[in-house]
């Protein structure tokens, strides 16, 4: 190992360990000891990572309340950053909260982190064009049954057992913290970006199933059949039309293949 490499490794581990004993490669002087000098890097490292997380996890901060700082400390201690862009440091937070004690006993926290992260990644996902109703109307009637929608790639669905979206909304608006609610059946929160604005909303059960089928690449005829199973033959087509109009207006549809 080169001495430069050894110096960098020793200093890096000293910063990560938050050890008060500085490695022998660094020196102090009359102005400050080596330990006091090292402490600036140790402190700065933790502050920077915590600040980066605070920007992305507003909902989690609202939900965790006083426990938020401790939660961040534990994540920072357990997870060195491995990406050159600090913006990606939160990518592992939801998984950490899934397995780490004591957070795993409060599954609402991992769920909240997952929703926050979906919103965060939608924000600077790749730009995609979207189609409007007029363009879809130009599809000839005989082609409709075989039409397959291409939805925006930034679109994400987060399964929620708790009212995580309400916490996120409170954080975004600066409202008071909601009370925790556990739903009888899981809800599906859709996260997507329309041009520059990130949105999230709860999907109705039939919309969720049709959307998942559309994402799988099922044909328009198959989507209508799914709806018929939910709402009956007569209601299926009007519901499908309403959903399509809604998705197009929300900028969720990138195109289609016939």
């Amino acid at each position, binding site marked *: 190992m080169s001495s*430069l490499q050894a*110096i960098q490794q020793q200093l890096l581990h000293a910063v990560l360990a938050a050890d008060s004993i500085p490695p022998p490669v660094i020196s102090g*002087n009359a102005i*400050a000891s080596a330990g006091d000098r*090292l402490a600036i*890097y140790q402190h700065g490292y933790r502050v920077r990572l915590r600040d980066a997380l605070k920007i992305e996890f507003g909902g989690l901060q609202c939900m965790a309340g006083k426990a938020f700082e401790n939660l961040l400390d534990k994540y920072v201690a357990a997870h060195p950053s491995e990406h*050159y862009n600090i913006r990606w440091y939160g990518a592992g937070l939801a998984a950490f909260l899934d397995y780490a004690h004591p957070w795993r006993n409060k599954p609402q926290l991992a769920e909240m982190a997952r929703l926050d992260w979906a919103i965060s990644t939608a924000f*600077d996902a790749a*730009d995609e064009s979207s189609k409007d109703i007029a363009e879809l109307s130009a599809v000839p009637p005989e082609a409709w049954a075989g039409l397959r929608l291409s939805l925006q790639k930034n679109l994400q669905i987060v399964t929620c057992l708790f009212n995580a979206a309400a916490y996120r909304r409170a954080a975004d608006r600066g409202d008071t913290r909601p009370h925790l609610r556990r739903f009888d059946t899981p809800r599906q929160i859709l996260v997507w970006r329309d041009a*520059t604005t990130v949105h999230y909303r709860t999907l109705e059960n039939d919309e969720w199933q049709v959307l998942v089928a559309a994402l799988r690449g099922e044909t328009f005829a198959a989507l209508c059949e799914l709806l018929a199973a939910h709402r009956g033959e007569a209601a299926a087509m009007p519901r499908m039309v309403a959903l399509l109009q809604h998705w197009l207006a929300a900028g969720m549809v990138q195109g289609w293949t016939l």
Partner: protein
Amino acid sequence: MAMTSNERPHSLPYLGYGLGLRVEHYEALLADPGRVEWLEIVSENYMVQGGLPLIWLDRFRERFPLVMHGVSLSIGSTDPLDEDYLSRLQALAQRVEPAWVSDHLCWTGVQGVNLHDLMPLPYTEEALEHVVSRVKRVQDTLKRRILLENVSSYVTFADSQLTEWEFLGAVAERADCLILLDINNVHVSAMNHGFSSMDYLRGIPAERVQQFHLAGYEQGEQLIIDTHDAPVSNAVWDLYVEAVRHFGRVSTMIERDDNFPPLAELRAELEHARALAEPLLQAAA
């Protein structure tokens, strides 16, 4: 006066007085840029796939000359250069067409771990050779000279054989790169390590200094901490005057990274820089 801009053999354009572009000032800068002549962007903030950051970037690109300033090149690390990072940086440079691209004379991590900090190097012949070969590779990839900035540091290494300014100067000469001199960082490191800021200014190759940063610091118990979150201090203004006397006309900007005041305050600091520098430059002309 040691130099005027037209004597610089490696000269890139002179841009005047600028600011670091931060989200907090997007609206205000477009509404009323005042006498802000150019902007420096943090490259990593725009190394994203899409969305608002790139829309804002395009808006500013139409209105201002831009330069790109990175924090993740990690030119001094003993880890291999991050090819993914380099190609994204190159792609961004193609989109922005900046007047120049800069990063720091430091390392940010090793063994795949990133400290997201500007870690100082030991000033040894070994480190010098290592950095020089990497700067050459980066410059070959980007097909342009880069600027390297001096960082604030709190530790020194028992192994160091050179002063910081000797090391910075040697990197610039041997790799044929340019220097972004952060006046605040010179002051912070001088105070923390007990060297003379004037020795620093006199010790680096003047013709390679292409840009100045001006920023603020925080007084700690024993050491002063480069926070870049406060107004420029009197000591740094004094050193700036010395730097203008010594280096001549150099593109200058206020760099605020946190604790953002209204834009008007930064513009006032920039006017102060102009008011200090212009009489000296005009007297020398």
